[in-house]
């Protein structure tokens, strides 16, 4: 089983290289380091959210509210910037991340204390968060000329060759890779997803681990909310609409089992990069961007079918009692 995880990532990495090679035959400029860095930067929000979603999915939950959380925190960050132009950007970033964590904690509390299925909780909070954005903004847009220059400059500021947005994704990935592999919390996430009953007997509070996973996912959504709004220099109700599906898709493609307990940070990153490469490649090879939705749908189906096959070879339970319901 431990051997399967690197194998799955190698195959995915190979698939990304294959896509890049195919594009290069028609359009050589796509695979230059400059453009790849641009693709990475464009995919950075997806990478950050996918890593957070991975932790949630590993604990047998799902967070469908990330995009709405992102949009709400982004809107609040933008409105705070407009109302208090003097407030320094680090404070706004902490504020957005903190608000995201609080919204995530709401999801987590409902899952932990009331034992409501995560899909119901986050479907509900998804619409509630979007509605709140409308209420606080009155349906209006916050445009770039209302934001301060410093607010919009941060994600684009170049630091050792890469924009801050890219560095944020790299930092999150590094932090979570260490956390998942080297801390008691990271290991308890796998324990909870792998076998909740056994986790209880080893002294792990299953609900609390799930709660913390939601808080982490929410905090990352809040951080991405600021980065997103500042990068595109606009905030309105529908930003990142439907993005939660792309995030889940990145996780599924990255080999994270929706039944919990199986998956890695590297997988989530590769899954996000795969979607990012495809998205950026479509216009280059002259395919209408309208194809993207269907392609990511196919990628999800292929990935989940493939992962199930890979998992089955090691002689798992034959009768799956309750997978996929949570």
């Amino acid at each position, binding site marked *: 089983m431990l051997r399967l995880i690197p194998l799955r990532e190698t195959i995915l990495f190979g698939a990304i290289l294959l896509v890049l090679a195919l594009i290069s035959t028609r359009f050589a400029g796509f695979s230059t380091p400059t453009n790849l860095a641009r693709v990475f930067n464009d995919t950075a929000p997806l990478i950050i959210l996918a890593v957070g979603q991975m932790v949630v999915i590993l604990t047998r939950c799902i967070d469908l509210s990330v995009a709405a959380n992102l949009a709400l925190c982004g809107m609040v960050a933008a409105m705070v910037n407009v109302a208090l132009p003097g407030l320094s950007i680090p404070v706004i970033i902490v504020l957005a991340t903190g608000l995201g964590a609080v919204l995530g904690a709401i999801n987590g509390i409902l899952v932990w204390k009331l034992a409501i299925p995560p899909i119901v909780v986050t479907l509900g909070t998804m619409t509630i968060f979007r509605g709140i954005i409308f209420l606080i903004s009155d349906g209006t847009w916050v445009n770039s000329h209302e934001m301060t220059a410093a607010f919009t400059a941060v994600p684009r500021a170049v630091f050792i060759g890469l924009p801050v947005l890219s560095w944020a994704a790299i930092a999150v990935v590094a932090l979570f890779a260490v956390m998942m592999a080297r801390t008691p919390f990271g290991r308890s996430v796998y324990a909870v997803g792998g076998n909740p009953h056994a986790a209880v007997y080893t002294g792990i509070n299953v609900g609390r681990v799930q709660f913390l996973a939601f808080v982490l996912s929410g905090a990352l959504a809040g951080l991405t909310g600021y980065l997103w709004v500042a990068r595109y220099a606009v905030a309105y109700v529908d930003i990142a609409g439907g993005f939660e599906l792309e995030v889940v898709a990145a996780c599924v493609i990255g080999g994270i089992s929706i039944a919990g307990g199986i998956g890695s940070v590297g997988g989530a990153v590769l899954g996000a990069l795969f979607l990012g490469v495809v998205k950026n490649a479509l216009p280059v090879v002259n395919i209408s961007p309208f194809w993207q939705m269907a392609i990511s749908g196919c990628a999800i189906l292929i990935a989940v079918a493939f992962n199930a096959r890979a998992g089955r070879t090691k002689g798992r339970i034959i009768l*799956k009692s309750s997978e996929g319901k949570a």
Partner: protein
Amino acid sequence: MTDTARQIPDRLQSRASRALRSWETLLLAVAVAIFIVNSFASPYFLNAWNLSDATFNFTEKAMIAFAMALLIVAGEIDLSVASIIALASTAMGLAVQHGAGTPELVAIGLGVGLLCGAFNGFFVTVLGLPSIVVTIGTMSLFRGISYIILGDGSFSGYPADFAWFGQGYVFWVITVELVIFAIIAVIFGILLHKTNFGRAVFAIGNNPTGALFSGIRVARVKFILFLLTGLMSGVAAICLTSRLGSTRPSIALGMELEVVTMVVLGGVNILGGSGSIPGVVIAAFVMGLVTFGLGLLNVPGIVMSIFIGVLLIGVIALPRLLAMAGGKRRAR
């Protein structure tokens, strides 16, 4: 999450399950209360024609909700229903461009729905994949195909008699959609509560392994449920397309949420194993009345979605909060 799943009693074991019955009574009381509050809140509420218009708020969603209720009772879910509507509607629009008449359009709408349902069912039952991931995938795929075909364009020019489904009246204020809704409700009510098939659905939802060992063809029943959900999405696609008179790829966007909310509000256990069709019928009316009443009070649609979201979480949270407050007598 699965270990706490079986706490809600099941109709098979205790036919007059008290919790369920009181749930439906409670829901009915809520519906009546909303009706009364609305008729005081707005002078335009108590008008037969307005109320008739209000039924469009829920009829199409409820058609899918009945099939979805069976699917959720059996422990599966289909998040691709709104995308099936988009694809079926796009297919009908495409057929209109090639001169199809109303009978062909209906056949195409139902056929695409069935095909999409079979596609979902194949992945879930034959390949044994979790339905939530499969239908999140097909949710992108089906609507993605609509986007490929339509781009940012739209189809219109449906034949005049096709408008009957979404805009016609059977007599006085009774719309065709309302009659279709009622017929489907009766069919699914009988199917779930009066047939062997319905009992198999409950059995599978409570214990798939046990159901298999008692001779139920679990995979086949689940496949049929996905077919039915696809078919009902096709019916809803016909009604919605006929009512709107045009097709865009963004048609029915986000409707899966409202359908699932309706099912859960109707007292169906989201983890499977229990639920009833009458509950879903009342839930449909509750949601329709709430959205219609708020609409009359000029509440914007997105604010209504807050109500829907709170309703969804609230109806599940409330009994659990009450149970916690009630001294935790009923241990899990």
